[in-house]
């Protein structure tokens, strides 16, 4: 009577991890039925706080080891790519096949090159170049600093080991954003719009528009030889090899 299937179902109904065994078609039918009944238990469907917290820490540790170079706000190129990805994704869903991460690109580092390796994902100034805006030592973990190259102004931020650069120009009416260090936000002096240091508009900032504010454009940024450089219009900087 106590077959592997019975033990499996007993552990399942007890909320424990069932033990593997070589299942037959009949076994599968009964197990899938039991799973459908067990799925009714909404209290078990919700993850525990302990699990959510533990997994968050694990992912944070892994994310800090993998720097994902963020493409610039290549709006037009991004839109085209997303349209393409959407079409491919829809086809993949309809066929039940997703053979590669169509929507995302794995980070590739190395090769001694600081420049982004997938330039088609970025919109760069036609005559842009890399400009040194700070030294790596100036921007410790958690630090924020602004830069102004004349043609482009922005904020640098290092968080969880990741370096970001976003525009300092409000996407509402192009006012120059200021840093509200107490709130860790970039705030527009004209109408009060606020953005996270990653460039995300903050709906709770008190400013409302009929639609939504676009995020702050990202600026290509890299670290090389102890310097932090951004890609911006202008003549070649001394840092450019």
């Amino acid at each position, binding site marked *: *009577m106590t077959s592997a299937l*019975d033990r499996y179902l*007993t*552990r*399942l*109904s007890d*909320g424990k*991890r*069932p033990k*593997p065994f*070589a*299942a037959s*078609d*009949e076994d*599968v*039918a009964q*197990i899938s*039925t*039991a*799973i*459908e*009944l*067990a*799925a*009714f*238990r909404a209290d*078990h*469907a*919700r993850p*525990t706080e302990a*699990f*959510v917290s533990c*997994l*968050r820490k694990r*992912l944070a540790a*892994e*994310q800090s080891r*993998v720097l*994902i170079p963020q493409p610039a706000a290549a709006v037009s190129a*991004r839109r085209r790519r*997303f349209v393409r990805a*959407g079409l491919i*994704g*829809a086809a993949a*869903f309809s066929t039940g096949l*997703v053979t590669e*991460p169509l*929507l*995302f*690109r*794995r980070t590739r580092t190395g090769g001694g090159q600081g420049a982004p390796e997938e330039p088609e994902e970025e919109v760069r100034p036609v005559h842009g170049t890399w400009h040194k805006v700070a030294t790596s030592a100036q921007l410790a973990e958690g630090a924020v600093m602004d830069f102004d190259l004349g043609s482009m102004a922005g904020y640098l931020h290092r968080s969880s080991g990741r370096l970001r650069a976003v525009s300092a120009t409000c996407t509402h009416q192009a006012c120059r954003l200021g840093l509200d260090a107490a709130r860790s936000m970039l705030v527009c002096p004209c109408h009060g719009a606020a953005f*996270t240091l*990653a*460039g*995300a*508009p*903050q*709906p709770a900032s008190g400013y*409302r528009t009929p639609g*939504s504010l676009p995020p702050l454009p990202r600026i290509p940024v890299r670290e090389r030889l102890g310097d932090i450089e951004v890609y911006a219009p202008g003549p070649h900087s001394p840092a450019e090899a």
Partner: protein
Amino acid sequence: MRRLRLRSEEFPDGPVDQVRPEEGGVPVQAAGKDGTGTQPVQLPTAVYPGWEAIYEDNVARIHRLMYGKVGNRPDAEDLTSQVFVTALKSLRTTATVGEVRAYLLATARTVLAGHWQRTLGRQVTVIDVDAADLDEYAQPPAAQPASRAGEHATHILAGLSERHRRILVLRFMLGYSIREAAAEMDISVANAKVLQHRAIRKAAGMDVYAGQGGPR
């Protein structure tokens, strides 16, 4: 018309490039018309501000999905972890919410398939990434999952006798131990085991008494 709803309160940090909802949500669209073919599914166009927002917005959804596919919390937690560990390696945070969710679902499907292959050698349940699944997945975690799970359970139990229905409800839906269920039904533990065995076979659409030595 089904609609995928994106609620502002789902994003504590605020998504980038966000289409602000009115009345707490953005109806993003549409999935199929009866008898006239399927329309393309319009995915939400907001963007997460970072991996943390992706995680916070989706961890309960993925766990709920996995629990519904494996029926126990330990496996659901393991599979949820696998999904995020795998997906976040490749995530580009400028992808839209809809694209992130679709990718997580696709990853979850692969992870679940691997789980069944390793444990039972057969695909017991699958994640069917069609518009209906995406629609259900997009529902906020607070709205879960009793409706659809309840419908499935009701359907499964509908053709059973009262005793079969009761033992399955007690054991699988309410989480009673075999002893507790036996006490509740005022039968012996041995009888409760036999009753559960036959009830689950019957619920699975199998001949209850095949190989059982006659009806009870």
